[in-house]
């Protein structure tokens, strides 16, 4: 778990202990994290804002049910993920955005290129990559968030790594032959 998540859990503990300023701080930080994660998963700012709002509202309603503040960040990411997945289904039905329309890879060593390669993955693979690498969640927690078996998450992670390698190496090959 990163320092940011540990700090978030500490603020959650203070909020659950009844400190009003801590709750405000928790909501502000949670809003920030929720928006970033949802925006990365959905690629749509408006949708990400809706997800963040709904997630924060749900946290406010359900925080008292959380058994331990140490689990806050994991619990929170799970909430955001579930809401974002539902939002994605809504967006897909509306076909109002193009979820995977990204330019081709130019520089495979650049993080921009890696992110573009990630965006070209199927959404089920991309979600696992973002949650595993971006949020430092364990495969077990990701499995619960996505409501799939742990083995499925491990397979998707393996498959995502494999496809990313292929895409990035393919770009290197193209560059080396002048394509």
């Amino acid at each position, binding site marked *: 778990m990163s320092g940011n998540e540990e700090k978030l859990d500490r603020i959650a503990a203070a*909020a659950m202990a009844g400190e*009003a300023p801590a709750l405000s701080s928790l*909501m502000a930080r949670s809003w920030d994290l929720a*928006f970033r994660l949802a925006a990365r998963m959905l690629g749509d700012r408006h949708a990400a*804002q809706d997800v963040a*709002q709904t997630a924060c509202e749900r946290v406010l309603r359900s925080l008292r049910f*959380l058994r331990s503040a140490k689990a806050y960040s994991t619990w929170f990411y799970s909430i955001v993920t579930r809401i974002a997945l539902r939002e994605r289904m809504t967006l897909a039905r509306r076909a109002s955005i193009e979820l995977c329309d990204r330019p081709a890879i130019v520089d495979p060593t650049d993080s921009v290129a*890696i992110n573009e390669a990630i965006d070209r993955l199927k959404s089920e693979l991309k979600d696992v990559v973002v949650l595993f690498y971006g949020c430092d969640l364990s495969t077990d927690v990701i499995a619960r968030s996505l409501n799939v078996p742990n083995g499925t998450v491990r397979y998707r992670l393996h498959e995502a790594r494999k496809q990313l390698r292929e895409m990035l190496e393919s770009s290197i090959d193209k560059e080396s032959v002048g394509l």
Partner: protein
Amino acid sequence: MNEFDQRIRDAVRGSLAAYEVPSHPQFVPESISLHHGQSKRWVVAVAATVCLAFVAAASTGHIAVAQLENAVTQVLRFFEIDARGRQYPLETQSLSLTEAMQTQAFRVIAPAGLPDGTALRSIQRLGSGNATTLIFAFDRGGRQFSIVETPSSSQTMPNIGYSRYSLAPSFTPPNDRGPQLHGQYFFKVQAAVWVAGSARVSLFAARALTSDEVIGVERAMSHP
């Protein structure tokens, strides 16, 4: 973590950090009581019902509401919610317009971002029950504008709704943060107030609707 994994991690983390995050909603905690296991009951104040004198408007098939300022009363409905999420009505409180404007709970129907000096002049209600649409007429410096709230189908937050922020032609909006369509500004509003004993947390936010959402709202309002 090997070098390849580390590159992916750095790239994903970098992309998350790169987003420009919009302002978060205004969270207004007064005093909080969230100890685990302390209380199984949670009280929610829902400011969604407006008691007014009704005047039938047969031409539209809707119920129009007399815009008598003195008759405007805001009703707060208090519920207890058990562990399974069932609501139990506790009490009903009626407030005058002045009191309603002063209470925290009234924020649930006032979108964020209204300019200073804005005064509520009247409230209209169209329809009834879950299909109720509320129209709040405001005045600022002698210029009129109104907000229309149409409830969404959300079961979790009864006071979530779409608001249409329509402006008089000469009115200058406080900040240009949404699409201007036919001289009207549209906002989506999410708002709620939680009250448990003396503790109260209110949350409200507004953002401009997307073009698709505007079309959806317009269709819903033209075919109620």
